[in-house]
């Protein structure tokens, strides 16, 4: 296997986030090339490359762009989903901190392709310095003539607004993001109609993840074939893997889709001293957990799906044998209950009650019947909630009971949690 740094190639430079730093490494060359192309040719290029949305769902990016009606006389919008909030997911924030310009260049090219003259970067509010870097990058790109009126003499105009959110995980759901960007509570919209025809202000809108848009300049420079030379049959290209948890060297790793967790652990130093992997998420807390039996599953959309989970955001949260799975699942469920927008009953009520039951189980006061009720509640949320947040809330619970039912039972028979929370901390050695 080979690592393939593209997005992260310049992150080692202390000025990687500046216009000079980006330009020194070929920044904005792709925009020049793209503006000389026909917008439809750019859409075809991204379609042929096989790029799939890096925000979790894996929908083909070029196909999304192709759904935008052309010549309809309406304004078109590009909205970048920079609301990275899925527990475990930590790739877009370091990307925007280290190189906001690659996103800005991607925004310019993508907006030109879908014939949008207005783009928004909706960034979560809880990252002050990332907001600063984005604001500066956009301002510098205007000054350099990469944004604004008649970009590089092409006759193409584009305005970009950096918009800070205000703390709501649900706004990562694309239609909730649109409502939020319009100044409403961030609650998802009924689909259809889809944003491609009725998006921001009821106009055709493309919503893409940061990493997806940031991958576009490289595709323009390298071509579809080059991009597709990386990855697996249906999961093409380079991507960021985020390794975290009880590992010796957590961090970002850029490689082709289809690497395995075993490869990443072997090369990065493995789990922390004297401990073994117990469970992990392939792509954030909404993707069912996996175990050490899944270390060799290729991390692409198809193989992780076949293993009973989802690739999601490649947020590889690794927990070792000191971790109580009941505690982990309770905490994730508390998160979903807090973040449920309240629009639909299964999610709003279901997540609330699941927290009550899990808290009882963790405290050692649960029963076998509680486990049955939990699974029944999950069954009543999955597929019945208004959006994917509800579905995601069931993933940790059903998968944890599937792989670690004995541990739930152990909490009942032992009248409490058998784990020492101190042992699972990173400062365990220092405090023991």
């Amino acid at each position, binding site marked *: 296997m080979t690592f393939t740094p593209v997005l992260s190639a310049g992150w080692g430079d202390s000025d990687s986030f500046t216009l000079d730093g980006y330009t020194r490494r070929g920044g904005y060359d792709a925009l020049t090339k793209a503006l000389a192309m026909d917008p439809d040719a750019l859409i075809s290029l991204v379609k042929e490359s096989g790029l799939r949305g890096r925000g979790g769902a894996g929908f083909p990016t070029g196909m999304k762009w192709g759904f935008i009606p052309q010549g309809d006389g309406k304004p078109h919008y590009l909205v970048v989903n920079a609301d990275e909030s899925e*527990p*475990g997911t930590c790739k877009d924030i370091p990307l925007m*901190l280290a190189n906001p310009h690659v996103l800005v260049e991607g925004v310019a090219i993508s907006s030109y392709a879908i014939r949008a003259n207005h783009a928004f970067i909706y960034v*979560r509010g809880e990252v002050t310095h990332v907001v600063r870097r984005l604001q500066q990058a956009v301002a510098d790109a205007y000054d350099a003539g990469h944004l604004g009126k008649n970009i590089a003499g092409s006759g193409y105009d584009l305005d970009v607004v950096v918009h800070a959110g205000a*703390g709501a995980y649900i706004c990562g759901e694309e239609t909730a993001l649109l409502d939020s960007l319009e100044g409403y509570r961030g609650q998802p919209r009924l689909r259809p109609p889809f944003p491609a025809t009725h998006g921001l202000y009821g106009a055709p809108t493309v919503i893409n993840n940061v990493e997806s848009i940031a991958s576009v300049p490289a595709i323009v420079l390298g071509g579809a074939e080059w991009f597709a030379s990386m990855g697996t049959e249906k999961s093409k290209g380079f991507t960021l893997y985020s390794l975290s948890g009880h590992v010796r060297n957590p961090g970002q790793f850029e490689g082709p889709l289809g690497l395995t967790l075993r490869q990443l652990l072997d*090369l990065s130093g493995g789990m922390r001293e004297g401990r073994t992997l117990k469970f992990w998420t392939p792509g954030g807390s909404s993707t069912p957990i996996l175990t050490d039996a899944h270390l060799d599953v290729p991390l692409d959309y198809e193989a992780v799906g076949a293993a009973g989970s989802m690739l999601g955001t490649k947020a590889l949260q690794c927990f070792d044998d000191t971790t109580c799975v009941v505690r982990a699942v309770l905490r994730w469920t508390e998160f979903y209950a807090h973040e449920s927008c309240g629009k639909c009953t299964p999610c709003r009520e279901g997540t609330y009650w699941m927290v009550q039951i899990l808290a009882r189980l963790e405290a050692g006061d649960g029963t076998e019947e509680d486990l049955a009720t939990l699974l029944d509640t999950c069954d009543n949320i999955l597929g019945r909630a208004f959006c994917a947040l509800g579905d995601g809330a069931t993933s940790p619970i059903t998968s944890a009971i599937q792989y670690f039912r004995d541990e739930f039972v152990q909490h009942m028979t032992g009248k409490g949690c058998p784990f020492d929370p101190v042992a699972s901390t990173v400062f365990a050695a220092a405090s023991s």
Partner: protein
Amino acid sequence: MLTDKTREEARQIIARYPKARSALLPMLHLVQSEDGYVSPEGITLCAEELGLTKAEVGAVATFYTMYRRKPAGTYHVGVCTNTLCAVLGGDAILDSLKDHLGIGHNETTDDGTVSLEHIECNAACDFAPVVMVNWEFYDNQTPTSARELVDGCRAGNPPAPTRGASSLCTFKQMERVLAGFPDGRANEGVQAGPPSLVGLKLAQQRGDTAPAYPDGTTPGAEKPKQQEADAQ
């Protein structure tokens, strides 16, 4: 306190958007930059400028976790207690800070310097356990380092963020940035923390690169300097 200047700045925010109501979230950040929370006066101002009822503005303000119903401390401290940070030490850090400061979740010290809350995942899991102050990153914290951090905040000389500006701004200054009024500090601080570079360094050690572009150049490589290019 909200002034005519605040109202003028609210109008500047409105002018950024094709439709006025899109300005509501940044306007609420602007209100917090003046009052430290979403004050009744702030709700009135937003309603007046956008032609909404106060109930409509309040309905939005109460939906989002970052909008506060009472004033934040000068330094607003958030401890991540989502699963991964909690397990790696976030729970212990939060307990330690509650004990040390004598306040609980969503409370503020009597002197108004520090407010505390437990927060959800802040997208820095490879730096766990994570503490945020005024939404600047304080990575790889321990109970001891977190106590020192809040002591510095209370004494008015907080340590610099791990990945952020070269010194910590106040809650109100931070909210002004989120409202879309840059403070000119984007060039301060590191470009990346060590974990962000782990994979890149490993690739470099192994001699790994992405496949070359069709023109033979390596993606993301430095371009030859202009003189060298001319010489060729």
